[in-house]
């Protein structure tokens, strides 16, 4: 068994604290200098059901969840029935003494939680379980303390101390068991220095929110919908420190329309939603585009409408989002693949929205939105707010009021209500240069051309896919959004097996550089596309725009993310043929 490499699954009913244990363990491993992938799987319930989370931690760079685990923490018997089959040889099962489960195949650590609680508040049950897992590894207590103190940093000293006490009880119990039975993973985890230097551990949504704060968003209108709700919570939690007006509106229609109103009034504004909510926002997207109002929309995909399969992941909204229009207008759609891209591209999204004066949609999916990953701490020093052709209220008094003036690059100077000299009406009607309704055909042609011309302002380098892995690969995996993680992990292992596979990653999907994409695909020896949907939406888009048809496919539509083993095995099979 190699050092500093472990995967842990935790399962139990909703409300039992499964995720708290997972997050505590993740923090522990991050503090130990490891890279961490933390993923969750739960139905749309407040109590009961079957909730699980996985914590994978390694010295090396990791980007996806694996199917097999070294430890299973079962907070109920259902977890044992459901998840035991996923355990590696020699794995440890931690469960309550009340469980009647016995096994010769696994090491079973039965914990008398009631006894260990010994008068402590029942809430500390999770911390005891966390302590037990760490006890299996026998690492010294400093890291334990460090992880707890950082996890509970916003809480009082008393809470930290109580948690520490509970963790220690679990830890001692498990360590004692392991020493006596010569089992567990003693010595498996040692504190190291992460080669990335300082790391952050966060979800895709968090990374996007941090970027939005950095980008100077001032208005957030949102209506809660999994898996985008954490945007609302996050921005509201920071409204005082950063003066961000965050409003839960009556519905998604109001959410985007308040954002557009704020944008026309001159501030950076955003909303976040999932597919069902985005459907309600559709008309307003067209409004923003015609009125040339910048707005950033985060769309976190899950399958189906209000109901659908609401707490699971999916890449099924791509074509819907790209085609969310009545008539035609420019709109940027981009899909970050990991938390670094969530951060960078969300920041970019605000700049692009301002530069192009049009809606920018950032597509995430539940997997990336809610899973947590470690990454090198973001470098914010080079990030510059670029508002494009924008006149601040405190700037000069305008001489003309041609808000939609025809210009060489299609972009007109933007100014806001309150600006002396600039009076105009911002309209969703087709209009002339001043904003006045104008349905004249010649004017409409010029306005259409003006609006689409703005695409040229997007830096070219953003519009081509990124390549990872060896140049002269025998097979290129093509993917977008959150499949990046699993693709990178797969090509790493395939390469070390001596197989030449690389990965072509699309972030910018609407628009992308058609010619460049075509020539990149033409120069691949063979291609396979990976998408978490049924119909292969990116495949269709690529074919529509370049004529290139990717024949080999791996579409997964079981509402779960791609797991490392699945992709690895699939690619091996394809290469064998």
């Amino acid at each position, binding site marked *: 068994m190699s050092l500093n490499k472990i995967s842990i699954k935790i399962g139990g009913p909703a409300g039992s604290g499964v995720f708290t244990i997972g997050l505590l363990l993740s923090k522990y491993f991050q503090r130990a200098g490891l890279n961490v992938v933390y993923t969750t799987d739960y139905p749309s319930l407040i109590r009961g059901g079957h909730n699980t989370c996985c914590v994978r931690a390694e010295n090396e760079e990791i980007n996806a969840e694996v199917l097999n685990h070294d430890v299973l923490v079962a907070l109920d018997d259902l977890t044992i029935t459901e998840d035991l089959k996923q355990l590696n040889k020699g794995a440890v099962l931690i469960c309550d003494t009340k469980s009647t489960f016995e096994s010769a195949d696994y090491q079973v650590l039965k914990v008398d939680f009631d006894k260990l609680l010994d008068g402590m508040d029942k809430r500390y049950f999770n911390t005891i379980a966390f302590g037990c897992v760490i006890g299996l590894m026998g690492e010294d207590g400093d890291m334990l303390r460090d992880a707890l103190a950082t996890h509970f940093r916003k809480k009082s000293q008393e809470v930290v101390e109580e948690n520490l006490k509970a963790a220690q009880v679990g830890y001692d119990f498990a360590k004692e068991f392991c020493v006596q039975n010569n089992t567990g993973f003693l010595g498996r985890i040692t504190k190291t220095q992460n080669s990335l230097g300082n790391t952050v551990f966060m979800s895709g949504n968090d990374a996007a929110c941090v970027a939005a704060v950095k980008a100077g968003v001032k208005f957030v209108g949102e209506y809660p919908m999994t898996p985008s709700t954490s945007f609302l919570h996050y921005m509201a939690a920071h409204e005082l420190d950063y003066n961000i007006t965050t409003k839960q509106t009556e519905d998604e229609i109001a959410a985007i329309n308040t954002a557009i*109103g704020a944008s026309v009034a001159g501030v950076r504004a955003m909303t976040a939603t999932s597919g069902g909510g985005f459907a309600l926002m559709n008309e307003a997207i067209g409004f923003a585009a015609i009125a040339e109002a910048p707005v950033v929309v985060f769309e976190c995909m899950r399958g189906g409408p209000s109901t659908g399969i609401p707490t699971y992941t999916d890449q099924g909204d791509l074509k819907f989002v790209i085609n969310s229009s009545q008539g035609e207008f420019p709109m940027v759609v981009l899909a970050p693949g990991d938390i670094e891209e969530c951060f960078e591209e969300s920041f970019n999204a605000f700049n692009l929205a301002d530069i192009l004066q049009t809606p920018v949609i950032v597509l995430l999916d539940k997997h990336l939105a809610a899973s947590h990953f470690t990454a090198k701490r973001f470098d914010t020093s080079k990030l510059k707010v670029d508002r494009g052709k924008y006149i601040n209220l405190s700037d000069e008094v305008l001489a003309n009021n041609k808000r939609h003036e025809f210009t060489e690059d299609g972009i007109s100077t933007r100014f806001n209500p309150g600006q002396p000299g600039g009076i105009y009406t911002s309209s969703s009607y087709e209009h002339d240069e001043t904003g006045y309704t104008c349905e004249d055909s010649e004017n409409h042609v010029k306005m259409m051309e003006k609006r689409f011309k703005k695409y040229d302002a997007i830096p070219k380098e953003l519009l081509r896919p990124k390549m990872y892995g060896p140049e002269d690969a025998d097979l290129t995996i093509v993917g977008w959004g959150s499949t990046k993680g699993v693709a990178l992990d797969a090509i790493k292992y395939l390469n070390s097996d001596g197989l030449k596979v690389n990965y072509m990653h699309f972030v910018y999907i609407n628009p992308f550089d058609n010619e460049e994409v075509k020539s990149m695909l033409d120069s691949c020896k063979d291609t396979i596309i990976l998408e978490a949907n049924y119909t292969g939406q990116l495949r269709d888009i690529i074919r529509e725009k370049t004529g290139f048809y990717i024949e080999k496919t791996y579409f997964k539509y079981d509402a779960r993310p791609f797991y490392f083993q699945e992709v690895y095995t699939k690619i091996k099979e394809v290469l064998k043929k």
Partner: protein
Amino acid sequence: MNEEIKIEDVNFVGGDNLKFSLLDLDSKHESQWCPGCGNYGIVMAVKNAILKLGINPKDVLIVSGIGCASKFPHYLKTYGIETIHGRALPVATGAKLANKDLHVIVVGGDGDGYGIGMGHLMHTMRRNINITYLINNNEIYALTKGQTSPTTPKGKKTASTPNGSIETPVNPMALAIGGGATFIAKSFSGDINHMSDTIARAIAHKGFSIIDIAQICVSFNPSMNFKWYKDRIYNIDDLPDYNNKNKSWGMIHALESQDDKIGIGIYYHNDDDRETYIDDLPEDEKLSLVRQDINDIDIENILDNYE
């Protein structure tokens, strides 16, 4: 309808000692409304109110939806946003929150406000955001050529109800009292003085003000013409127990005012009803959001939390 109004005696109270005239508010756009349409008078009344209050036109933002009434922003030289059907209120809310120094006036038809936009109306009233909402209520969908609207009287034959509408119409004043607006009035497009005065008071009111304006539509609701209204309109100020500080009083009279007897005037007006939405915001709004600097925002301490 397009009566001249004398503005010599208008009291200018604008900041910076600026004085504006009707000429300053003239957008110079040729109207697309039918001759005799009540909307002309409403534009005039809004201009009068702006002049009366001495507001600099650059600080006025008129937000509309779509419909005949919603063409409004083009006929005044102020800032405007012509949104989409029924969404003027959320757009106006966002704009006001971004720049609280603007005087935001929302204008739209009865279909726009009480039909497709009804959900937003209820919530905007509840929030008491400091904006003014004018509903040019012609009791018909005009721009789409004469279908029934939420305020169309029961029994009325329209293009979509050839056998007579069987729905009970919305009572705007009762709705607004129940919804929590803090300035609630009814006016008439044929009475410029009444409208000018009521709109000026509504703009000056701290909180959400709503004025339902009985608006003449000569083309799609010709039976409800000037004379029809004149025969039915009474002024609620003249009632002996007039007390617009009292919601219950307003509600009783709102329910009494129906199609055969239309009471104009202010049904409820209370500056002290409650704080406005912006005054209640927890974040520091001393400086309007739009005036806040967003360059080089430091997020290092946020990132520290993720280490």
